[in-house]
């Protein structure tokens, strides 16, 4: 089972510019979470802070008892082996071919024999559909292939926590659907805690168990997907609807005048329709996270808004029937 990631009061700034402040959330073990946010709200910075690549000024990130912000460098290096991070453009080593790239973590951290390494690497390459490309250099393949190779490399050490930085950027809609399915299948197979940073609405609607959103240097919300999908928070509504009307402007925030003018535009008040979550491909075991999440959501039932409860009930109904 995946590992819980606890973020407490995290604040990060560059110079005197605050990226976000006082972010507190918990990534539940084994569940898939998505962090949304308009471009430039520090989603990637958040991801890099979780793994200790960037050091926020305040707060803690607790992973397996180690503080990734202020802990000892040696502990942080040890704990990083629990992570798999898929970079935005793969971040493959340009001087190595795909096989060596994917084999890199194995060669560095394990004493496996070369034949064993070959078997594992080939298995992962098959998983992301890259068989036959193992001899190519990262410069010789497309952006989508680089991304998938980056994913394969992130997976090779069987990580407990998987972080994906915009798995969809630069991919066509079909490939994005494939990668969404791949992420869900992965979760079913290895039950790792996953955090996906994206601004892709399809991924946001179909993949996660939990959703969060960063805007205006704050975490607007974080919770079960139904909470955000039914939220009447203007920022969340605007973002999930992909509309122009709302607090998000081209340069991050709108001025008062524009906002006032928009008051007159009638917003459609139809509640957003919740798309069912993706299921693992046939033949794979069911996701263990589903049961855990159900227990967790029911435990916090009283704090949930009414709209979210209705949505959750609708989503849970088939499951309850099965048990009845």
């Amino acid at each position: 089972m995946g590992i819980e990631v606890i973020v407490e009061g995290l604040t990060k700034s560059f110079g005197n510019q605050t990226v976000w402040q006082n972010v507190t959330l918990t990534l539940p073990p084994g569940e898939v979470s998505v962090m949304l946010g308009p471009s430039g709200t520090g989603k990637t910075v958040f991801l890099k802070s979780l793994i200790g690549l960037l050091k926020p000024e305040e707060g803690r990130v607790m992973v397996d008892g180690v503080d990734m912000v202020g802990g000892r460098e040696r502990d942080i290096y040890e704990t990083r082996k629990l992570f798999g991070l898929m970079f935005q453009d793969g971040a493959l080593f340009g001087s190595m071919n795909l096989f060596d790239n994917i084999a890199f973590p194995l060669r560095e951290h394990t004493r496996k024999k070369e034949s064993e390494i070959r078997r594992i690497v080939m298995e992962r390459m098959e998983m992301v559909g890259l068989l036959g490309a193992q001899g190519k250099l990262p410069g010789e393949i497309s952006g989508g292939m680089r991304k998938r190779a980056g994913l394969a490399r992130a997976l090779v050490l069987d990580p407990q926590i998987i972080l994906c930085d915009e798995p969809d950027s630069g991919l066509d809609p079909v490939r994005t659907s494939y990668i969404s399915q791949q992420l869900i299948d992965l979760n079913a197979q290895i039950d790792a805690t996953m955090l996906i940073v994206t601004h892709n609405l399809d991924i946001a609607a179909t993949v996660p168990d939990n959703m969060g959103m960063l805007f205006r240097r704050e975490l607007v919300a974080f919770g079960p997907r139904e909470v955000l999908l039914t939220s009447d928070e203007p920022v969340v509504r605007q973002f999930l609807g992909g509309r122009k009307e709302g607090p998000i402007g081209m340069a991050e925030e709108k001025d008062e005048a524009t906002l006032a003018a928009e008051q007159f535009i009638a917003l459609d008040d139809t509640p957003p329709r919740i798309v069912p979550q993706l299921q693992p491909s046939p033949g794979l075991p069911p996701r263990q996270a589903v049961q855990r999440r159900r227990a967790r959501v029911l435990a916090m039932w009283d704090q949930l808004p009414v709209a979210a409860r209705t949505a959750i009930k609708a989503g849970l109904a088939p499951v309850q029937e099965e048990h009845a």
Partner: protein
Amino acid sequence: MTAPPVPESAPEAAAPAPGGAARRRGIPGTGALRETGQLMTLAATTVRDTFRRPFQVRELIEQFWFVASVTILPAALVSIPFGAVIALQVGSLAQQLGAQSFTGGASVLAVIQQASPLIVALLIAGAGGSAICADLGSRKIREELDAMEVMGVSPVQRLVVPRVLATMLVAVLLNGLVSVVGTAGGYFFNVIVQHGTPGAYLSSFSALAQLPDLYISEIKALIFGFIAGIVAAYRGLRPKGGPKGVGDAVNQSVVITFLLLFVVNVVLTAIYLQLVPQKGA
């Protein structure tokens, strides 16, 4: 050199206001101190990580071969005229003073103690160090180094240590080559061109030069190689911004190395001349 420390690359983050980091910094001069401190920290980390398992043998061999291959020929080609210039200059000066018989000793000492380690270091910094800096810098901006850290592999241990060891090793070995070629060049010009006597050249050589002169030469080369490697790595690990930043970093690494080399050379020479009694003095 005193530029503000770069906020680590954050392509998608809210871009920091230009000069944001500079404004936070109060007293002038602290930037330079901070940079110096970070350079020293990298040097200390590199020395520490040299003894940490697993040692990157393959990377070391590759880097050694690379640095050697780009420096051997230029070093040899530079050292011949350099030895010649010293021989000609010292030769004509000694002639004016009426001490032609000591030309050999004087020019050989100058070549071995001063010229050879400096030539080696300049070439290693210029040819090897710049390539190392550019290599690390472009890996940094392509997030390769971040990826490495995420996988729990320290870029210092994996990449910097073998490179610094390679520059040190090449410096020591190359220093021997340059000393020999420089001395031979000096001999050729003194004996053939200036019509000095071979016997006087060789006997003054053994009258004035001693083995510790060779030792200090090699120690200098070792230290210069270390400086060249560390400065190149330091600049390479912290390029500012994109590809242009890597270019600037390479430029700075070479200039900083040159400055450091000459200062350190003065210190080492002064210490050596104080500590080791010179022959015939």
